[in-house]
């Protein structure tokens, strides 16, 4: 009998049907992988399971008995817990309090007993074999991986029966990912029913027993993993077969455009040397926290390097701000699209024209028609799906928002474009569009740096790959007969 079972769940928001007549069963001691493109309804489902949203229709049973998950508290009290992708816990509170917030041990007069809470926290952490985290530590002082462990401890602090893990490895290094897998195995052995959400197929095959695929808010398939091939699953997920994942292209390299020499920072990176030619895609691979994004931010003038030089077309540039870098012909599509790429609440055309206002305006006076022309030219090239250019970017999907960010930089006609995790968290369709467009860019003679943590993307797109480790360039590879293992070894510092 399943621990938790959902029948006929539907949920709508104004203008959007998030889930339609969905079923899901989670069995004790089993890991069920939930797979689907962005916007398939996974996060809505998680929010229903954790009591944050109420379904419009359908029923939920726990151990065969119907239950109502009326609030986050009631879901938690029933033993349904979730570990979220970006740990949603409290940085300024202690580890113990993060574990026990809402169900802290009480002493006399019903007051919180801090001593008992710290002791129970230690005991709970020990249950998942975590001995190096002290209960009184401020959560914000821990690494992301350790925060995940605290989130798991929170789940273990009650007798959780259902544990939902929402992309738990998305922001972790290889070693830390291993620890998460161990943890999943431990939870499994204790008879918990686990829902494991992930975009990474290799990972799913490693940890999960069963799978459930969602597409456009509907259930399109479920089975034991052993019965299904990776290819079949991709087909289920996108509703079509993806025959050509990466665009084939001829690499015709031109002159050196960007030359970086001995670029260093006191704490983030040291002695970076590399060249980038026109028509070339240079991949930057490494573990999270290897210093790739930090190095890119220095190229873009957002952080100040302590030493070294950057030249574009043999001209020395020393960008002190993003404005300087942009003027020199170098642009940066940041990793955090929502925080750093777009400004929600404002229309598409304004987002696109922002860095090009000098060109579209006259004597600093706006000319809307010029802005529209510019925005249309670049967004249509990227096949943006939008009702109009005056539409608020907040209403676009993640993939289309990324297209707006890229369009805004192309409008500057840069010499060098840095794409930091360009396809992170966007659906497969948009991913392909971005990849194809990158191929177009280099064919037109632009020089591209692509920071990515996805091996297929690195291998499929780059001409050369630089692997960074601990703030240094570990190795540089020509992408000819390059294997994934070589990159992973270089990134992790394991000798061949």
């Amino acid at each position: 009998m399943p621990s938790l079972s959902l029948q006929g769940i539907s949920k709508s928001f104004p203008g959007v049907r998030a889930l339609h007549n969905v079923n899901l069963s989670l069995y004790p001691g089993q890991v069920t992988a939930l797979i689907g493109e962005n916007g398939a309804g996974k996060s809505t489902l998680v929010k229903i399971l954790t009591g944050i949203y109420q379904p419009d229709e359908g029923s939920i049973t726990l151990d065969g008995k119907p239950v109502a998950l009326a609030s986050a508290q009631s879901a938690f009290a029933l033993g349904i817990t979730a570990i979220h992708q970006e740990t949603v816990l409290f940085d300024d509170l202690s580890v113990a309090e993060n574990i026990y917030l809402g169900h802290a041990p009480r002493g006399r007069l019903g007051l919180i007993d801090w001593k008992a809470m710290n002791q129970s926290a230690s005991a709970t952490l020990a249950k998942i074999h975590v001995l190096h985290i002290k209960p009184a530590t401020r959560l914000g002082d821990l690494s992301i991986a350790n925060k995940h462990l605290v989130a798991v401890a929170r789940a273990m602090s009650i007798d959780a029966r259902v544990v939902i893990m929402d992309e738990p490895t998305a922001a972790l290094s290889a070693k830390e990912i291993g620890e998460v897998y161990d943890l999943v195995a431990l939870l499994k052995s204790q008879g918990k029913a686990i829902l494991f959400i992930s975009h990474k197929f290799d990972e799913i095959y490693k940890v999960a027993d069963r799978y459930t695929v969602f597409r456009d808010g509907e259930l399109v398939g479920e089975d034991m993993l052993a019965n299904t091939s990776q290819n079949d699953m991709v087909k289920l997920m996108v509703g079509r077969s993806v025959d050509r994942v990466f665009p084939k292209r001829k690499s015709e390299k031109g002159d050196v455009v960007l030359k970086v020499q001995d670029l260093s920072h006191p704490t983030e990176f040291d002695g970076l040397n590399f060249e980038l030619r026109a028509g070339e895609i240079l991949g930057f691979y490494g573990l999270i926290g290897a210093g790739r994004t930090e190095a890119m931010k220095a190229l873009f003038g957002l952080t100040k390097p302590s030493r070294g030089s950057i030249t574009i077309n043999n001209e020395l540039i020393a960008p002190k701000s993003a404005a300087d870098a942009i003027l020199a012909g170098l642009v940066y599509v940041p990793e955090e699209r929502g925080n750093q790429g777009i400004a929600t609440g404002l229309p598409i055309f304004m987002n696109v024209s922002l860095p090009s206002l000098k060109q579209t305006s006259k004597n600093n006076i706006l000319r809307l028609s010029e802005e529209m022309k510019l925005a249309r030219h670049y967004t249509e090239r990227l096949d943006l799906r939008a009702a109009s250019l005056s539409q608020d970017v907040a209403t676009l999907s993640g993939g289309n928002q990324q297209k707006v960010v890229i369009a805004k930089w192309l409008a500057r006609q840069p010499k060098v474009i840095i794409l930091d995790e360009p396809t992170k968290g966007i659906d497969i369709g948009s991913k392909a569009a971005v990849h194809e467009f990158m191929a177009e860019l280099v064919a037109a003679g632009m020089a591209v740096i692509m920071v990515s943590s996805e091996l297929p993307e690195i291998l499929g797109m780059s001409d050369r790959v630089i692997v960074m480790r601990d703030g240094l360039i570990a190795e540089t590879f020509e992408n000819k007969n390059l294997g994934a293992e070589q990159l992973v070894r270089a990134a992790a510092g394991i000798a061949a």
Partner: protein
Amino acid sequence: MIARQFKSREILLALAIAILIAGVATRSAEFATPRNLAQAFNDSSILIILALAQMSVILTRSIDLSTAANLCFTGMAVAMLNKFHPELPMMIIILVALLWGLALGAFNGILVWKIGIPPIVVTLGTLTIYRGLTFVMSGGAWVNADKMSPAFIELQRQLILGIPVLSWIAILVIVVFVIFMRATKQGRNIYAVGVNPTAAVYVGIDVGRTKFVAFCISGLFSGLAGYLWVSRYVIASVEVANGYELNVIAACVIGGISIAGGVGSVGGAVLGALFLSLIGLALPVINVSPFWQMAISGAAILIAIILNARSDKQKGRLILKKAQNP
């Protein structure tokens, strides 16, 4: 680590207060006598109560600009109640003050919680509404000492163990706040909501309701302060505590309560309020015109936020091995 920083921030402030007292004492030894310091605490009591009330709101990433107007309105209400019914026992007066203040705070809270108006807009509105209503209720007239009953005026001046009741009330409020903020679910929820509202939703805390509770607390204690203020200065009028809300927020800021929410302690708020009032008390002693007080407290606020910001400033990430093990 940060926990240690909080403590050190309070110690720093305590040290600043000690230096202030010592410095003034070199001019006039009288200033540092226990008797005089007890008097100084008594003079700070109302600001301490208001700062704690404000703190509960600021911790939830909100702000209450209506505290002084609430104080004024409630003060007038109890003064008029006393004027027309001098026979009512003081317990009733205090109870009315608390409930009156609570109702005003709850009105703010409801607008924030149920309608979702930004707190700064709500309290900007109620600030003028509450003061306006004070005028309507009183018809613009003052309530003077001769209209107040002796018990109304004298209660807070009575001595218990040589310390006036006003000070005892402040001490009681401090103790209540320490217990509430540290050891009750509601108190911890207030911190959680301020530290990370999204995470608060995920652990089942109703963010809007928690803000509502914070505004109720702010209103409740502003109401209490209303009675205390009116009976201390023996006058109730529309002008009472005009603009005082900014002093209260200043006390919080000096006490290290982050305007961004989630960070701050009862000790900090109390010390911030003490520091601000001590400056006012010290000026006449060292023969500086009282007109200097405002500028000095302004400078103190700026210094406090500059110091607090320094400790929050982020450095680059530690990635390089050599930077980690120098």
